[in-house]
């Protein structure tokens, strides 16, 4: 029997006694996943691509008319959309940079023998485990100019974090940094603990300074895993919605996903919002690709 040839299952195992082969078990795991992906990811993806070339509105019974590239053309000519993209880019840069600096810094601090290290690490991970909406609501209170604890403890009087159009985006980024630095820290910590100790010993024997050691040993060896953290955080920051939506409604914090949400679910411009979603998707893919290329390069070293 063919199955008998192909199977490498323990012949005494329960699966084998039921006549299951490797292939069968593989299919059992893979087919539902693939079906799930097709139904919930790939099908809508292709379907919405079709919609992005129409003037379809989900809120009306009017048939969708094919309008060619009109949606894309109008979106890319809309100064408001461009400003949304510029805001998103600024947000991604500020927030991811902040997270890498804070996260990596904390990881460096924790990467040594200190008492209660496990407890400390766990406590530091807490922000990441909270819900975005809850964090948003909490920070809205913390930033409050009348009774917020931030102004009180920093002695800033009634400084308007969220109502000041120039400050609001940074305020959102600070919240995001607070929430997601632990994620970068966790990955960096894993990378740091994997750096062989003998390299440091060799550097110490050669009397290498701390900066030299950091830039020549620590950073290059942690770089691949740090890159992965950066990729994840960039993608997430690009899609940020909850924090910015809850904290403030300044036009200067209207990141692209908020605009997309409004277009799709308040204005019900389904066709056009599909087009915008595709533009965002292409951008995220492009950025991720650049990162992945760089990541491979880093790994080769």
């Amino acid at each position, binding site marked *: 029997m063919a199955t008998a040839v192909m199977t490498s299952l323990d012949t005494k195992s329960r699966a084998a006694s039921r006549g299951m082969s490797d292939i069968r078990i593989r299919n059992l795991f893979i087919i539902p996943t693939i079906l799930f992906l097709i139904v919930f990811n790939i099908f809508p993806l292709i379907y919405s691509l079709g919609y992005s070339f129409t003037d379809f509105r989900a809120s*009306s019974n009017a048939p969708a008319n094919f309008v060619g590239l009109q949606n894309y053309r109008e979106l890319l000519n809309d100064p408001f959309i461009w400003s949304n993209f510029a805001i998103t880019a600024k947000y991604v840069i500020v927030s991811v940079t902040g997270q890498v600096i804070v996260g990596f810094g904390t990881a460096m601090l924790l990467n040594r023998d200190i008492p209660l290290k496990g407890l400390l690490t766990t406590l530091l991970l807490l922000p990441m485990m909270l819900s975005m909406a809850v964090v948003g609501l909490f920070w809205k209170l913390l*930033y409050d100019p*009348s009774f917020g604890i931030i102004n009180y403890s920093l002695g800033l009087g009634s400084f308007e974090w969220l*109502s000041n159009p120039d400050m609001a985006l940074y305020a959102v980024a600070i919240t995001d940094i607070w929430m997601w630095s632990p994620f970068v820290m966790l990955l960096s910590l894993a990378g740091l603990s994997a750096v062989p100790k003998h390299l440091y010993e060799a550097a110490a024997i050669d009397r290498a300074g701390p900066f030299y050691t950091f830039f020549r040993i620590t950073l290059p060896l942690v770089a691949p895993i740090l890159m992965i953290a950066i990729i994840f955080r960039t993608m997430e920051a690009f899609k940020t919605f909850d924090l910015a939506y809850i904290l403030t409604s300044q036009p200067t914090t209207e990141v692209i996903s908020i605009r997309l949400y409004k277009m799709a679910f308040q204005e019900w411009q389904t066709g056009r919002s599909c087009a915008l979603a595709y533009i965002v998707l292409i951008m995220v893919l492009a950025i991720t690709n650049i990162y992945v290329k760089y990541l491979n390069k880093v790994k080769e070293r």
Partner: protein
Amino acid sequence: MRKTLTGFLAGVGLMLASGQSALAQELTIFWAEWDPANYLQELVNEYEAQTGVKVTVETTPWADFQTKAFTEFNAKGSAYDMVVGDSQWIGAASEAGHYVDLTDFFNKHKLNEVMAPATVKYYSEYPANSGKYWSIPAEGDAVGWSYRKDWFEDPKEMEAFKAKYGYDLAPPKTWAEMRDIAEFFHRPDQKRYGIAIYTDNSYDGLVMGVENAIFSYGGELGDYQSYKVDGIINSEKNVKALEMYRELYGFTPPGWAKTFFVENNQAITENLAAMSMNYFAFFPALVNEASNPNAKVTGFFANPAGPGGEQFAALGGQGISVVSYSENQEEAMKFLEWFIKDETQKRWAELGGYTASAKVLESPEFQNATPYNKAFYETMFKVKDFWATPEYAELLIQMNQRIYPFVTAGEGTAKKALDSLAADWNATFEKYGRHK
């Protein structure tokens, strides 16, 4: 044995039969999650007691009310038999066939006369002046004002105010007086501020706030029949009104840049502002000592008049419509017949609902029931609303985009913001072929 079986079968049959009839006699009304929805549930419980028809008021938070309702409509779902929908939806919902045409029902019961005219115009009729009706005014609502009576009636304050402005300190009759009072009470060093206004630009908060100024200044948003906006939305009156709103923003508490009904009630409960704009629907919380420590010293007034003496307010509130995809339309119509009866409307008002029934509104009984009912009565006969066209949401977002930076950050000028808005709206109407 046979007997048992027959008995059993009969039992099952009876159960099925009664189950069937119970199914037919159940109605679901969809509304947003707020106090009036609870009052409505109490009201419909009485309908159940009278007729045996069980009516459930299903609710969802305001933030996804629109999204959830339209998702159900778009899917042609029969989950809701009736919906108490926002006044702006009526264009989108009627053109797409989501609402049942209630014109005959309306004319048969002369609801034109039964309900306050403004509510009929904005909650029920679409297109404007077409004589076609899609909903029954259910929860009347408009923007009004609350104020701190103790601050206003403090003899020292009154004296100082009179010395500074030359007239008596009292609830403002005009927007100019309101500006003076806001300026007078604006004392950041004492953590007391002049006024609380709407500034939230994520849905219709800011726009509603600005509408109060525009309408009382004698301005309009556009011609709702011909879709003409040039020279109307950017008229001299509207520019003045928007400048006034911007000026009032200067007297708000710090950080007042994303505020809507919650924050504006807080302005009163937390001793932040002397006056605060809000929907009447949120005033019950202000006279309740459990939710407002200043309940005893909170007063109310209607939206003041503009420089030309005109006095209007922005409309909130909703009408009740029958959903086209409901399987119980007949039963729903019966319910509506009960709902519009005078005694039902009276009971509705007693429970805390804001009736739109002209007769109830005019009754002294209603007007004296709460400290704000009189202001509500005065307001409901002079309300105006935003566009109700199917593309209202785009118009709303465009208006937010143009006026928010001016109001909260002083960017550009009022004239420039409104000129750009006129261009945006024209382009949108062009896109949907509204200009004939």
